[in-house]
């Protein structure tokens, strides 16, 4: 499924998308409304809860080039992430040797924040590659 279709499933409003989930649901409901003989129509409530609005975060400006820059490789702690990132590190060594690569394992279990590391990266790094989910 492509990104646009996925995001429409999320129900994001037409400000970002051509068609919202709500509109799709209304269409779907009326499509399902071919009444069976002898059955009257009834009304039932929508059982869904209330999702929070989404605050869009502008993405950070990109770099002109990685040449001469410092890229942090951040291991989330999932099995094999460190080995994968060491292969990424080796790739930079072979293909973009002017890039300084710094490997770090994020502190704590994977779902925990690591503000100390984010501070270090902000002070000393130019970009981040983070891996990986399983």
């Amino acid at each position, binding site marked *: 499924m492509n990104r646009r279709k996925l995001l429409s499933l999320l129900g994001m409003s037409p400000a970002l998308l051509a068609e919202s989930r709500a509109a799709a649901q209304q269409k*779907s409901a009326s499509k*399902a409304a071919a009444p069976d003989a002898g059955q009257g129509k009834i009304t039932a409530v929508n059982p869904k809860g209330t999702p929070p609005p989404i605050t869009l975060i502008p*993405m950070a400006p990109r770099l002109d080039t990685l040449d001469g820059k410092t890229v942090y490789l951040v291991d989330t702690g999932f099995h094999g992430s460190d080995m994968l990132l060491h292969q990424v590190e080796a790739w930079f060594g072979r293909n973009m040797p002017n890039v300084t690569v710094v490997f770090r394992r994020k502190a704590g279990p994977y779902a925990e924040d690591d503000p100390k590391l984010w501070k270090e990266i902000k002070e000393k*790094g130019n*970009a981040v590659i983070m*891996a990986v989910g399983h």
Partner: protein
Amino acid sequence: MGIPSAPMITKAFKDLAILNAAKRGMPHERICFTPHPVWGKTPDELRVYVDGPDPVSGKPLMKEIVDALTVPLSDDEKKSGIVSVSVGPPTFTDTADNLQEFYLNNGYTDFLPIILPTQEKVDAMLKGTGHKPDEVVGKMAAGAYPAWSYTVRQVAASAVMAGCRPEYFPIVLAIASSGVASLFSSTNSFAFAMIINGPIRDKLEFNYGIGALGPFAQPNATIGRAWTLMSKNLGNGGIPGDTYLGSLGNNLNYNNVVIAENEDASPWPPFHVQRGFKKEENVVSLFRGLGVVPGQVARGSSANENVQFDYQMSDLFSTFTGFFGALIIADPLVAIRLKEQGYDTKEKLIAWLYKNTTQTVKDYKSRNYAYLFEYPQALQGREPFATWYKLPDDAVIPHFPRPESFNIVVTGGQTNAYPQAGNLSYGVSVSIDKWM
């Protein structure tokens, strides 16, 4: 951070990664994908991943990563502001058959027939509580997602759909107020359980006798089901690939493990009293873990032996993941026998189990959950993991990190002395009376 980033995710989590980034404000985040899995691959195999294509886009993976960090942003990627999220119109009108189909096709159900939440039925459910229909009950998320909120009225819809009677509604509201979803995103396929304590067990005719854990009473069946429907509808859980990733799934998720404690037949204080409530209070206590297993097949269970339930349980628990706890679900005959054998309090039995359910450090370190969750804590100096990781491989350590990992509940009909056990951790106890 204000620094360009390129997240790498394995292909199996494509939808999750895109949708979760969107929910957190970056619907166009430049996510790069590797083949799946990474776990268990050799360095040479991972080099092939890195030198090869992104399996989603088909482009060379490392070129995609470099581009993610260097290609200028599009207008969409620079957007800020608030975006509303719609869940559709407040009501749907159609024939009953078509509405059943519509609710099923839109993921509102557990794929079993439901009671349609008509306005009349929802209004009747609302009479089961003194709380106002528009009162906000709480927030729920099925994992590391932004939580959804819900009102008493919205909870009532799921309670109706599950087949609850209005008098069950305070228990459903108490569960909803906990914010604990019974469908969790983990790939582990979690299971959930609840213990019901207090006079409400008799008032609503919960079954805590013969077949206590089976499909033999309406409150046991429908309140557990309501938890799962709430988790889907109020917490947006249970969407495979998005908010649910359990590889195998879990059959217990249909109505969860509902345990009304057999308080009168138990030789020990009931569970909620252990948690600081009074005996006459009505309380629901929630658990999370991996499932429930039988306890009949372990040591000392032959007909001619003096059954050693303590050893039997310890054997069983040594096969559990220590990341979750151990919930002993004891028939009253088991509990009474244990008391006769000297365990006059639950605490005494728990102390024995904690001390005698052990493992070697080598075995502990080889466990998946230890590496993923406890090794990082050991590095931060958190106990007991920091000490455990410093010990030699042949050192013997407890199988569970602390005595509080064990819990005991008594239920069942005393037709035989059989225990069951959940690899389940205690989460929270919530007053039902507050939602009357």
